[in-house]
């Protein structure tokens, strides 16, 4: 294992001399109820080795049977990526020895993937669109989960032994492979992140995967090589494995570009190898070189018969596709009338759905944004939680807003009520009732408070009488204080004008 620190070339300097070439393999775990080839449940986080059948354990004499829903999900992913769908395809055995695969082979697809020759348009942050060509999307199964024990790092180096859980063994996967991506230049790291984000968004919108990267539902292997500007032949590539967050994808591509440039500048050659990504240091280290071990001796799986698709079946699946995420975003922004910056903030906060539901439930787009991006975001930040984990629902906002519109509470009280909602005290109406927060619009009580304020501030009254309406604000403070903040500001203003004989 190498432990030296890699020489790096500054990113911008590297890009003056070299063009980066990228390629991605993204594994998507499907959210079917059962596994790819057995009726074991496909559930994350259960007691190890309880979601297993003899098929998952590779016991002698077992026969796999294909999960129809998994095939349909794979076709839907292919269609969403503008792929052609194979009329006929089959499964193959990919042979290797490792304890995460008890059969000593992974059932996959080899030269006849179910989907091939597609594309996806990736929108970069400034709105530039970059088309990524898809080579193929094929069906396969996930491996079991190894935990390396002993040693100090939890990594395999220095481990004394490993523990194996086969609950994940046989979970349906779709592997999406791009063609080589040229021309991204300095935007290569940004494109890498945006590409994986787009794949995640698509499989989530299709509802074929839980799409949680932190759980490994979407995993990315990033291929990077550099070629001298003007060169015609690709450089040697490295494959950085299991880069499992969007930020990490961006950083890993950037790091490999900086590292490759330094190796090439020194006159040395890039070794074709896998690299391991380390989130703590944001670096990669050498894995294993390409070798005999990559000779997987693929051959057709004799226990599984071919899959044949018909046009009717494909069209039925196509009719189930949701609106493509990029188009959906464009439509929502136009419907809501948000500026580019406002909309980007909403998307980045991950609350597009909440705002959509809030508007659908009866508020304006401006009101929905005000609450979700304002007070709710502030409360989430204070609690160090994601906005969606705060317990505030679109219904909460609609209810709060209708209390304001009915003049039962004012804006300031509404923010307090929201805080109580987050604190688990109930719905906004219940809280207003329980804590007696309803606005004082009883004119006798309010009138007395206004009278007191007028009497206490004759200089302000003079200004108002002289036509300086802004001075009314100075009376608002004492009135609000007297009513514990529960006065309706509009009504107070009306009363002041009435009492001073200025009402129209």
């Amino acid at each position, binding site marked *: 294992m190498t432990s030296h620190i890699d020489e790096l070339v500054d990113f911008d300097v590297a890009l003056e001399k070299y063009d980066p070439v990228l390629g991605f393999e993204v594994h998507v775990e499907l959210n*079917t*109820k*059962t596994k790819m080839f*057995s*009726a*074991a*449940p496909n559930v994350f986080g259960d*007691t*190890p*080795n*309880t*979601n*297993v*059948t*003899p098929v998952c*354990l590779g016991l002698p004499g077992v026969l796999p*049977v*294909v*999960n*129809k*829903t*998994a*095939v349909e999900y794979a076709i839907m992913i292919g269609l969403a990526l503008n792929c052609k769908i194979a009329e*006929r395809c*089959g499964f193959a055995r990919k*042979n*290797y*020895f*490792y*304890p995460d695969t008890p059969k000593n082979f992974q059932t996959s697809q080899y030269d006849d993937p179910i989907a091939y020759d597609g594309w996806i348009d990736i929108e970069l942050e400034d709105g530039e669109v970059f088309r990524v060509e898809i080579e193929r999307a094929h069906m396969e199964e996930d491996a079991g989960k190894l*935990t*390396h024990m*002993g040693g100090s790092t939890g990594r*395999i*180096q220095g*481990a*004394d*032994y*490993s*523990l*194996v*859980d*086969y609950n994940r063994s046989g979970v349906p996967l779709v592997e999406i492979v791009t063609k080589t991506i040229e021309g991204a230049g300095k935007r290569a790291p940004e494109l890498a992140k945006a590409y994986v984000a787009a794949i995640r968004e698509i499989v989530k919108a299709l509802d074929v995967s839980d799409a949680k990267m932190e759980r490994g539902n979407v995993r990315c292997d990033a291929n990077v090589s550099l070629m001298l500007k003007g060169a015609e032949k690709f450089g040697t590539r490295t494959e950085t494995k299991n880069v499992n967050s969007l930020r990490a994808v961006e950083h890993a591509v950037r790091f490999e570009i900086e590292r490759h440039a330094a190796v090439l500048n020194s006159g040395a050659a890039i070794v074709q190898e896998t690299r391991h990504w380390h989130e703590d240091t944001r670096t990669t280290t050498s*894995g*294993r070189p390409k070798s*005999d*071990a990559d*000779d997987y*001796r693929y051959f*057709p799986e*004799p226990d*599984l*018969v*071919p*899959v*044949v698709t018909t046009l009717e079946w494909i069209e039925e699946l196509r009719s189930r596709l949701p609106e493509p995420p990029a188009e959906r975003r464009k439509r929502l922004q136009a419907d809501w009338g948000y500026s580019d910056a406002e909309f980007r903030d909403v998307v980045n906060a991950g609350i597009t759905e909440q705002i959509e539901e809030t508007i659908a439930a009866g508020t304006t787009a401006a009101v929905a944004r005000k609450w979700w991006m304002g007070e709710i975001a502030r409360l989430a930040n204070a609690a160090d939680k994601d906005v969606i984990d705060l317990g505030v629902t679109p219904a909460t906002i609609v209810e709060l807003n209708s209390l304001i519109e009915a003049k039962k509470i004012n804006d300031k009280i509404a923010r307090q009520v929201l805080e109580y909602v987050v604190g688990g005290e109930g719905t906004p109406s219940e809280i207003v009732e329980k804590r007696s927060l309803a606005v004082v619009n009883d004119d006798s009580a309010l009138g007395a408070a206004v009278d007191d304020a007028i009497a206490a501030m004759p200089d302000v009254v003079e200004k108002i009488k002289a036509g300086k309406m802004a001075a009314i604000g100075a009376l608002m403070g004492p009135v609000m204080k007297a009513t514990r903040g529960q006065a309706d500001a509009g009504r107070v203003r009306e009363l002041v004008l009435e009492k001073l004989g200025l009402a129209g």
Partner: protein
Amino acid sequence: MSAISREDVAHLAHLAHIEMSDAELDKMTGELGVIVQAIASVSEAASADVPATTHPIALTNVFREDVVGETLTAEEALMNAPDSVDTRFRVPAILDGE
């Protein structure tokens, strides 16, 4: 002349994690050569318009509905394990795979 070389057999044995003596390599090179030649003669008989056959029976689309079925208990799953810890299989640290 065999259709498969001694080096081919040694390479395959290595990939399959099978240890073979020199004598075994010699023997297998001859035997595998005969098998490969026999299969090659099938290719000669088939004209170019005959598609490659992977399955002898013309079945397609044998599917299962996505419905959870019976599973093993962890105890059953581990019944034949040489070693285990709690409900997981225990295996030696393996470095050559990765």
